[in-house]
């Protein structure tokens, strides 16, 4: 089994088990859509997979190799989109994007990336003046920056990426994810159903955390 696999994964937050004995397998070119009620542990799972939270138990492997063996390599292959948009209000959209691109050693072709989410016209606007949906688009454009670079991240961990997006932007996001999948990438996306699930349907597997309980 290649791609991303987890074995017997468990996460404990504040002495409470969020999830336990989780076995996942996502092949290259496939997306995994995580569903589950609020508080069922979708975000925690994505943070554990990104390496932001330690796993209480179990292991995570990429291409069959435990990620604990080389955390730097795991970080280099991971793109993480969390709940918040990590944008500085006084910097412009393209400055924000260029900073993250350069910091990750990617080629920050910000204009192309912003164009992919139809906000190229806002490149020189400080993000303070953007709406919530526009900020989300700028945040998601980080994925496009990675995609357009050589050796961009292969594992995308997206925590409810469609929050605040209009239907048009959801299709742009879906197209970006589909392009990533056709490039043999892996995407794990938490959702509450909706349009993104439909658009990714042919390439995605579903997994419900709450069904497992703990």
């Amino acid at each position, binding site marked *: 089994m290649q791609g991303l696999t987890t074995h017997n994964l468990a996460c404990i937050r504040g002495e409470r088990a969020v999830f336990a004995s989780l076995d996942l397998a996502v092949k290259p070119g496939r997306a995994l859509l995580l569903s589950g009620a609020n508080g069922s542990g979708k975000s925690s799972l994505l943070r554990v997979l990104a*390496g932001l939270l330690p796993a209480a138990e179990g292991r995570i492997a990429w291409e069959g190799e435990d990620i604990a063996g080389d955390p730097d390599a795991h*970080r280099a292959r991971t793109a993480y989109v969390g709940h918040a948009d*990590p*944008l*500085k209000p*006084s*910097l412009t959209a393209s400055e924000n994007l260029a*900073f993250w691109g350069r*910091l990750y050693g990617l080629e920050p072709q910000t204009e192309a990336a912003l164009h992919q989410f139809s906000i190229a016209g806002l490149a020189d606007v400080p993000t303070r003046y953007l709406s919530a949906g526009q900020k989300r688009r700028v945040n998601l454009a980080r994925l496009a920056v990675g995609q357009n670079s050589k050796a961009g991240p292969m594992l995308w961990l997206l925590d409810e990426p469609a929050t605040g997006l209009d239907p048009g932007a959801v299709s742009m996001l879906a197209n970006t994810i589909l392009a990533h999948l056709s490039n043999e990438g892996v995407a794990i996306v938490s959702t509450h159903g909706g349009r993104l699930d439909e658009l990714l349907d042919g390439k995605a597997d579903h997994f419900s955390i709450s069904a497992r309980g703990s």
Partner: protein
Amino acid sequence: MIGFVLILRRELRLAWRGGTDAIIAVVFFVLAAVLFPFGVGTDPGMLPRIGGGIIWVVALLAAMLSLERMFAGDYEDGSLDLLYLSPVALGTLALAKATAHWLTTGVLLLVAAPVLALLYNLPGEAIGALAASMLLGTPVLSLVGGIGAALTLGARRGGVLLALLILPLYIPVLIFGAGAIDGAVAGRPIGPQLMVLGGFLLAALALAPWATAAALRQAIE
């Protein structure tokens, strides 16, 4: 190294665009130091004796004002997660943040301090000692302050907690900084005090980023 430069440049740009935020510390520094003579009287013999100590105490408090925001913005908007996931080590991030804090706070205090020294009628040698001790001491304030800023991330009333944590750690800098000025006023050599301050700076450079990184890791988890 590239990461250090990128983060430092971003911080300076944010400080520059932030406008008035950056100068609040130095305005507080000048105002608070100017208030003291109104309270203690303007006996020309007394002001030079207490001036060095007052300027240093007020500098400590001014440096603390902007500490709380060192990591708070990045913590709240999720930037800290991405900084952690980036190829840049957390220690490098801590060093870049402390450097930016020093450049936007410590350097301004350094520039304003000689003016305040004139206000307190400090003799010429004491002004030199003040400038030298602040040049060595203010980077320590930023470096050690970074530990407190990282430890109090996510805490309620983080600002108060930060003061309680960090002010005791500032005491050695205060003792030797004010000591150097007192020494200069009394005509004693100030080399030993400056060397101790230099030692503090080297120790803080080596240890503080590492401790800050450990505290940041805690905050992320």
